[in-house]
């Protein structure tokens, strides 16, 4: 498996370069963002002297490249911070300290990540069921009413922003019908049953939006496979339609579904901003929007890097899975 080893190495180097580039871009963009960070951190009624002290403490007066270098140093060797009464060490890889919350960014990410992962992987199960199921049905019942209705529903999911779908679902399901609790995050390890009940609605909202893509992909791939020669041969031999769909046609759709899925999961880890905000799930996306609003640069950089990391890893996983599913693909 030297080929695989080489693939991993190349991807690892590529990932580091990509993430470094992203961190530079985020630094530059947020450096230019309006908002007096020291004043925001200090409070609206701070005197100019106090604001100056805070700026010094946060190293805001340093030139951009010095601040970036300091950030890199933190990742490589860690950083020390004063709490006033003592000095605290943030060990490498240290992404710095939140300007506003005095929390280490790495700790913040570790606290938020389980929420985002819970949301995304649960939603993934639903969108695969909804999307692939719809795709199979519509390939099978092509041109009939069933297909049109199913396609319409999945497209409606695409067309309606989550802040509308999610809120309406919540008002109806939790408020009026009282079938589910109003979502509030419960840790998986604290109470798995409550975890699932509370996340069901967010999962559904997110899944409705993603499902259409899978439905279309599945349908298209299956139609293509169904048109191939060997399927016709099976048909000629009298193999049942169900068996053809289940055993053969679906297999053809397998690889692209895996690829699409890995990518969706990667970007949804930090990307479900609106879902997290609406349902009050304290995940990466919600924290990130808050950090942008208060120009909390260390948090923004740290979180964007985490998101980028997941996207890049998901892409690599997709490639590997693809190669496994389709032997003709060579990992490069």
């Amino acid at each position, binding site marked *: 498996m030297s080929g695989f080893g080489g693939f991993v190495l190349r991807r690892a180097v590529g990932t580091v370069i990509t*993430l470094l*580039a992203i961190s530079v871009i985020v630094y530059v963009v947020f450096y230019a963002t309006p908002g007096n960070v020291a004043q925001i951190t200090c409070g609206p009624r701070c005197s100019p002297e106090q604001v100056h002290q805070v700026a010094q403490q946060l190293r805001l007066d340093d030139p951009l490249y010095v601040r970036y270098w300091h950030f890199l140093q933190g990742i490589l060797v860690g950083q020390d911070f004063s709490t006033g009464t003592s000095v605290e060490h943030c060990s490498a890889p240290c992404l710095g300290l939140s300007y506003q919350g005095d929390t280490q960014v790495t700790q913040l990410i570790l606290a938020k990540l389980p929420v985002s992962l819970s949301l995304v992987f649960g939603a993934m199960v639903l969108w695969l069921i909804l999307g692939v199921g719809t795709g199979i049905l519509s390939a099978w019942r092509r041109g009939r009413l069933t297909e049109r209705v199913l396609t319409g529903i999945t497209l409606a999911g*695409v067309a309606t922003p989550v802040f509308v779908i999610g*809120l309406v679902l919540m008002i109806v399901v939790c408020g009026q019908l009282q079938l589910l609790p109003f979502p509030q995050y419960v840790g998986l390890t604290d109470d798995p049953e409550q975890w699932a009940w509370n996340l069901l609605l967010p999962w559904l909202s997110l899944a409705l939006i993603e499902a259409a893509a899978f439905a279309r*992909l599945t349908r298209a791939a299956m139609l293509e496979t169904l*048109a191939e020669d060997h399927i016709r041969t099976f048909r000629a031999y009298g193999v049942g339609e169900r068996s053809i769909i289940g055993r053969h046609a679906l297999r053809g759709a397998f690889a692209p579904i895996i690829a699409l899925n890995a990518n969706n999961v990667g970007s949804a880890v930090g990307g479900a901003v609106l879902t997290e905000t609406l349902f009050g799930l304290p995940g990466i996306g919600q924290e990130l*929007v808050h950090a942008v609003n208060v120009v909390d640069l260390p948090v923004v950089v740290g979180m964007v890097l985490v998101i980028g990391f997941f996207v890049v890893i998901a892409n690599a996983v997709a490639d590997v899975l693809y190669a496994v599913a*389709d032997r003709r*693909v060579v990992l490069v």
Partner: protein
Amino acid sequence: MSEAIVASQAPGTDLASVPGASGARQFWRRLRTQRAALVAAGVVALLVLLALAAPLLTAIEGQDPTTYHPSLIDSARGGVPVGSFGGVSGDHWLGVEPQTGRDLFARLVYGARVSLGVALGATVVQVLVGVVVGVAAALGNRWIDQLLSRITDIFVAMPLMIMSLALLAIVPSSFPRPLLVAFVIGLIAWGNTAKIVRAQTLTLKGLDYVSAARLSGWNTWRIARRELLPGLAAPVITYAALLVPMNISAEAALSFLGVGVKPPTPSWGQMLTAANVWYQAAPQYLLLPAGALLVTVLALTVLGDGVRTALDPRAASRLRVGTGRKREAKADADSKKATADADSKKATADASAKMAATEADSKKATADASAKKEAEA
């Protein structure tokens, strides 16, 4: 951006079609045979017409999108419209907006201008950048390809929403906002387009007639212009039809986060954002923009499917299940790519297998393409 963005990037996009396979006449003939696509085209045309004729239509109604009508709302009850169906009347065809009494019909048709305009503008930017980067990467030498591919990766991996929040805050507010929103979406979210174009170009490059052109000494530019661009037209147009609804959703999501188009200019995204809390007290306020968005996305998707089918005769033949034509030997490589964009990966994978030596890393380009979404939901 909206999770919506995400998804609509649809698989089902046909990335490959036989280059130059069909002339315009053939295309129209094939398109005409698809009733659903024709209806969808009609709907899209109608929407565009509504948007263009907004001033005329509102003049007929006798309203405009910005005038307040305090007498039509009940101030003590939060400003809910007076009268049934949200204040529908001969003067206000679709009722009035809660809290202001502004005419909803006028806001909806003027909103169409902004929403469709921003979405189209962003799509144009995405396609331009995507095609230039994708083709350059595919035709350039190893280093150019590496460089451009890495840059593309960076843009795919950056969260669109977060970068938009920052960029929209940096640019002075005097810059025309709809144009700015279109540019920001377009300039951040072109990564997937570039990946798809690069993959497709690599596939085309491996085909016999392009190789032939190369061997006969045509320069790169001429090959790109004469042989590749026509072959790219089909997948790009198809993909663009899917980008438009994604971009409409992106605009809506940016409005929700408070950085979209600025009031008093109406947009569907802004209306949705303001209206979602009114779902119980004034449902039509929410249903109007949501319905408009739904119709637009449906129509564009169906139209996109139709265009794809019309551009790719092989796909058309496959539409009749079980009667697919026998694959021809030469089409072996392309046959795979036919369907979903994720499939394009396969396509390139096959292509690269063929030209293994020369194009070692072509396959990489793609699966991510399917991935689409920088979107955030």
